[in-house]
């Protein structure tokens, strides 16, 4: 399935996706959109792991299982983050990061 596609293509695509996520993480104000940027970053890392596993070490399983565990951790992280976001909304009626500064100083 991956004949004729060099490893570099996957790595460059993952790098672009990673830095798109970084841009969103820096510019967004809403907590949910920040969470979406983090999901982008995690996904780009998964692409990297799987491409390395398929191209460089096709006789091993490390990359595959790393991605599997990263997906599980991402799911747990999203669940907890959304619980926290809903709790913040209930307390402050906003999820804008600039208005949630009760614990500052």
């Amino acid at each position, binding site marked *: *399935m*991956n*004949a*004729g*596609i060099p*490893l*570099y293509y*996957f790595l*460059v*695509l993952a*790098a*672009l*996706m*990673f*830095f*798109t*996520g*970084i*841009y*969103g993480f*820096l*510019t967004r*104000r*809403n907590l*949910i*959109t920040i*969470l*979406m*940027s983090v*999901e*982008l970053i995690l*996904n780009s890392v*998964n*692409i990297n792991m*799987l*491409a390395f596993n*398929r*191209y*460089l070490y*096709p*006789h*091993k*399983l490390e990359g*595959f*299982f790393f991605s*599997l*565990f990263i*997906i*599980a*951790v*991402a*799911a*747990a*992280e999203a669940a907890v983050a959304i*619980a*926290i*976001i*809903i*709790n913040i909304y209930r307390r402050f009626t906003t*999820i804008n990061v600039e208005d949630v500064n009760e614990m500052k100083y």
Partner: protein
Amino acid sequence: MTLNQLMFVLFGLMITVFGILTVTSRRILRAAVYLLFVLVSTAGLYFMLNYQFLAAVQLTLYAGGIVVLIIFSILLTSHINQKFEPVGLKKSIFSALAAVAGAIVTIVTILDFQFSATTEAAREIDMRVIGLSLLSTERDGYVLPFEVISILLIAAMIAAIVVAKKGGPKKTISDN
């Protein structure tokens, strides 16, 4: 251009374009739908790399689970037609500068590096191999991370319930 390359270009374009739309769209619900497209294209890339099981996991867990969770929380916390105010010019310029500079450094480093592939025979990862490896303590066994992740998942589940539980005004001791 072969069919493989055509599919890769298609998925790559979808990931890049919808990824940028995800982080720049001013309507939050649209951003979530663009994120869904990105995740589905990523599953397509996994299919291209011949990891069918992981592509299925990606589709069910990310596209089916996390995006639905995100959309639910969007509907709970913001108005559907609400538009964000545009990002400040200075902030967006500096963030874009940081992202582009990082991307250039990374891509130049990647293209400069000589990867050396092994000559060993490829090993197909089918369901049987996955199941045996997850519960094996031998070489290529992953029973310890499997157990740790199960504890992490139940901790996250309990934490999510406790944090999001409806908390009324706190009762003082003198109430009883």
